């Protein structure tokens, strides 16, 4: 029962590579589905991007996005793709953290935790204003 494999840097690199690849592929796929649907729904309307209005709550919070998904709204499907894309590097950090824990590299467990806390602070720290 001594066959527990030691986690090496090589394993960490492979894992991180996979996380990044699948994250990008999934978010791209979701964005394409939402995008095609969006063009069906709004393709003939006129774009309004010359003035900045800020996006409605439906696009800016996870709750809003999930609610829109329930109603089958195309724009919220696209925003879900965006959220997956933004989550990919954050997930990469979480996986690195697990890998450094398995590798028993205390210094890098600490460093990774610092990076993760900064991002979580940015997410929930009320910087939205």
């Amino acid at each position: 029962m001594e066959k527990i494999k030691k986690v090496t840097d090589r394993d960490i690199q492979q894992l991180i590579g996979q996380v990044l690849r699948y994250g990008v592929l999934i978010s791209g796929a979701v964005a394409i589905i939402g995008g095609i649907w969006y063009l069906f729904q709004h393709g003939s309307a006129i774009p309004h991007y010359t003035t900045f209005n800020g996006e409605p709550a439906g696009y800016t919070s996870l709750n809003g996005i999930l609610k829109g998904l329930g109603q089958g709204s195309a724009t919220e499907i696209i925003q879900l793709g965006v959220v997956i894309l933004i989550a990919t590097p954050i997930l990469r950090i979480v996986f690195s953290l697990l890998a450094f824990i398995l590798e028993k590299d205390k210094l890098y467990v600490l460093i990774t935790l610092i990076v993760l806390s900064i991002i979580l602070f940015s997410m929930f720290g009320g910087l939205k204003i």
Partner: protein
Amino acid sequence: MNILFFTLILLLGAYLAGLAGSLTGLGGGVVIIPLLTLGFHVDIRYAIGAALVASIATSSGSASAYVKEGITNVRLGMFLEIATTTGAVIGAILAIYTPVNIVAILFGVMLIFSAAMTLRKKHETALTEGSKLSYALKLNSSYPTREGIVDYKLKNIGGGFSIMTIAGVLSGLLGIGSGALKVLAMDSAMRVPFRVSTTTSNFMVGVTAAASAVVYLQRGYIDPGIAFPVIIGVLAGAFTGAKLLMKINVKWLKIIFCAAITLIAINMIYNGIQHKF
């Protein structure tokens, strides 16, 4: 111009941005902002949101390949991400108090700097003796080359860390990856071999951009109608670029591209001074 037409042109533009960005190593974000603001008269805040999304897409897409090859220094990247994410959060806060025309001028300056950095000569020689801190932080590593595995050591960790913080601030403020500053920190200050510094910088861009993107998403800078053609176009362009990179000599392409973005940069600065944003 209706949304269908707008989307198709933006898709094409984003594809070319991703292609150019990956061939020259500048990333997809830098071309997206002038394309949207100067080309489509989109408000610069939407453009920044789109550029952040484009930066994350190109970074994650290409990093997945480089990390697996074992060129990226994951520890170095993680350590320096403390600096870049802190900077990115500061940048996202500063963005509230910075007038949009100042943002445009800063962006133009950054663009010219990036062009100059791309054409600069790089040193590829690896140091054999590192600084004390480089050992303590386990930052020294090795990477595969045609002649076999090369070991390298780093110096001036503090200097590199400081430049990285500035790179993070600019990334958070302007919505770009700041790849040029990241490479400067690693290449010139810490003496990371060029191939390692480019791939590690690219690896870090995703996390840095994500740190400010979570703020910008909540602020309503990221519009789905702009985001989806940008994500798809940039990803497809970066993918084509990565394939082409093996086959063609990019030296002339880099020079032409750098001249082009310098002109765009001057345009951005001029419009910024004229308060056209």
